[in-house]
């Protein structure tokens, strides 16, 4: 009974009846008006909403509109509950984005069946979303999710005048490791590295992703260079602490990683404190920096770290003069591949 259900109705008796019927189905919260319903969904998105269509003040339809305009609520099913029995009303509820429709007076078996169906569909949808965004081997985010998060966080940072840094992490001499120890051991090593990265990324907003075979990314929103360097040191330490023997490595006797940090903060040449002002004065050079430039910076830094002997990190600022940005569609320029 882990599912959270939000009951929205301006009639307390109707809420109490629904609560009575659904007592064994999930954790139940309620709202008696639209504004409260929106506030509660922001605090903690439910798995299902039962929404009265006609409430005083903000109607159920307006609540539904507001909910469906929020990305995190798009997949949350909403069942409209109403005394209107006309089929046109039912059609308009479904067209407005409702998943189902229950007419009042409520019939307990019908409500239970419909709620169970929507919760089952929600569970399946969640599983699909999770699978589509997760790397099957390591359980961290996959390349698709990384690309989405990078773009989202970059835009958010630019709008809010917040720094953002990206760590690209490459397992040193991984081909040699696979050749020597075999692919099952290689897979197990990648899983351990992913775990170490997840531990190193302490904040909830940080994102660990596997972007290719032995390549990982760590996206750190609202993080300046000092913070990113601190995380990079922690990553190096955590991976070394795994103490995975790598006899074929010319860098160390154990598995190690190299890290490139792409940095966009107030010391960066293309830093924009106030996006609106930069647009107003037409500062095109600084405005033209993109999320892809951050990846290019991180990739160049990674290349430097490898050239300097691996098992270390290097940092590179984002610049509007990034050499490999022209015409690049793929955000990973140096051989990062799409991971499943």
């Amino acid at each position, binding site marked *: 009974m882990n599912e959270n259900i939000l*009951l929205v109705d*301006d*009639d*307390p*008796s*109707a*809420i*109490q*009846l629904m*609560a*009575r*019927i659904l*007592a064994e189905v999930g*954790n*139940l*919260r*309620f*709202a*008696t008006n639209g504004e*409260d319903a929106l506030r*509660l969904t922001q605090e903690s998105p439910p798995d299902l909403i039962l929404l009265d269509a*006609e409430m*005083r003040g903000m109607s159920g339809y307006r609540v539904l509109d507001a909910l469906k305009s929020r990305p995190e609520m798009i997949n949350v099913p909403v069942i409209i509950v*109403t*005394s*209107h029995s006309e089929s046109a009303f039912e059609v308009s509820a479904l067209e407005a984005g409702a998943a189902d429709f229950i007419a*009042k*007076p*409520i*019939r*307990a078996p019908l409500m239970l069946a419909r709620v169970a169906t929507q919760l089952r569909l929600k569970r399946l949808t969640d599983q699909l979303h999770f699978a589509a965004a997760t790397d099957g081997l390591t359980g961290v985010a996959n390349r698709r999710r990384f690309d989405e998060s990078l773009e989202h966080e970059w835009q958010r940072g630019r709008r809010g005048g917040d720094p953002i840094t990206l760590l690209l992490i490459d397992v040193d001499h991984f081909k040699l490791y696979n050749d020597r120890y075999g692919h099952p051991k290689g897979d197990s090593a990648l899983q351990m590295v992913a775990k170490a990265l997840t531990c190193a990324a302490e904040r909830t907003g940080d994102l660990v992703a596997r972007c290719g075979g032995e390549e990982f990314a760590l996206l750190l929103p609202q993080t300046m260079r000092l913070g990113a360097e601190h995380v990079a040191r922690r990553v190096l330490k955590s991976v070394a602490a795994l103490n995975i023997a790598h006899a074929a490595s010319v860098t160390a006797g154990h598995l190690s990683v190299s890290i490139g940090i792409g940095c966009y903060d107030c010391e960066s040449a293309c830093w924009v404190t106030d996006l609106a002002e930069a647009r107003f004065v037409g500062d095109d050079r600084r405005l033209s920096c993109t999320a892809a430039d951050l990846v290019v910076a991180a990739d160049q830094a990674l290349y430097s770290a490898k050239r300097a002997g691996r098992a270390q990190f290097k940092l590179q600022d984002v610049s509007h003069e990034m050499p490999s940005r022209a015409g690049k569609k793929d955000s990973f320029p140096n051989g990062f591949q799409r991971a499943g």
Partner: protein
Amino acid sequence: MPRTTGVSRPTDELASKAWPVIDGIDYTEARARLCDDFGLFRSSLKRLIEEFADVAIAGGAHGSEALAAYAARMHKLTGSAGMLGADAIRQLAVDTRAACVDGDIERARRLADVLTVHMRRMSLSAAPVLRQARIEAEQASRGSPSCEVTVQPRQLIDLIQLLREQSLLALQRFDAIAQPLRRHLGDELFEITRDHIDNLRFMEAAKAIAAR
């Protein structure tokens, strides 16, 4: 008397009791619709009678806005009456609303007058049932005079948290500590808090408990 509304099951005692005959209510239908929950029936009936005690259309209510507001009220009555098996009242509410939507103020007024009569009759017939509910609720929260259990700070914090989250688990928690909570809050504040909780005004209930 334990609460049977919300998230708990009705007690065997209440479920097996014969439901009282109340003018205008088909109690067989009500039992089926309310999952045999007599406590929920009483609290819903009380709320309906209080909220729709006056359903007459005011003399000056001619404008489209006033009619729309009245139609919305009738829509609400349709739902509440339907839930309680008050079928005649439910049908009258449906017809009155339709008259409002059609802009037929004279018809709406005539229907509202009939509705007023039905509501009064039901209210009078339900009075003893509601009076008994009040007595039972008060007795239950008073408990035995020899019972000296005090409410624990942790219990209060948990209850306030559930109330702020608008979690319906708060109904059970409130019932579980009703007796010591009454002693803690005093009769007057306890009754105010209980009224807030019965009517799902959880934020106000949390404030009342926290204030003490």
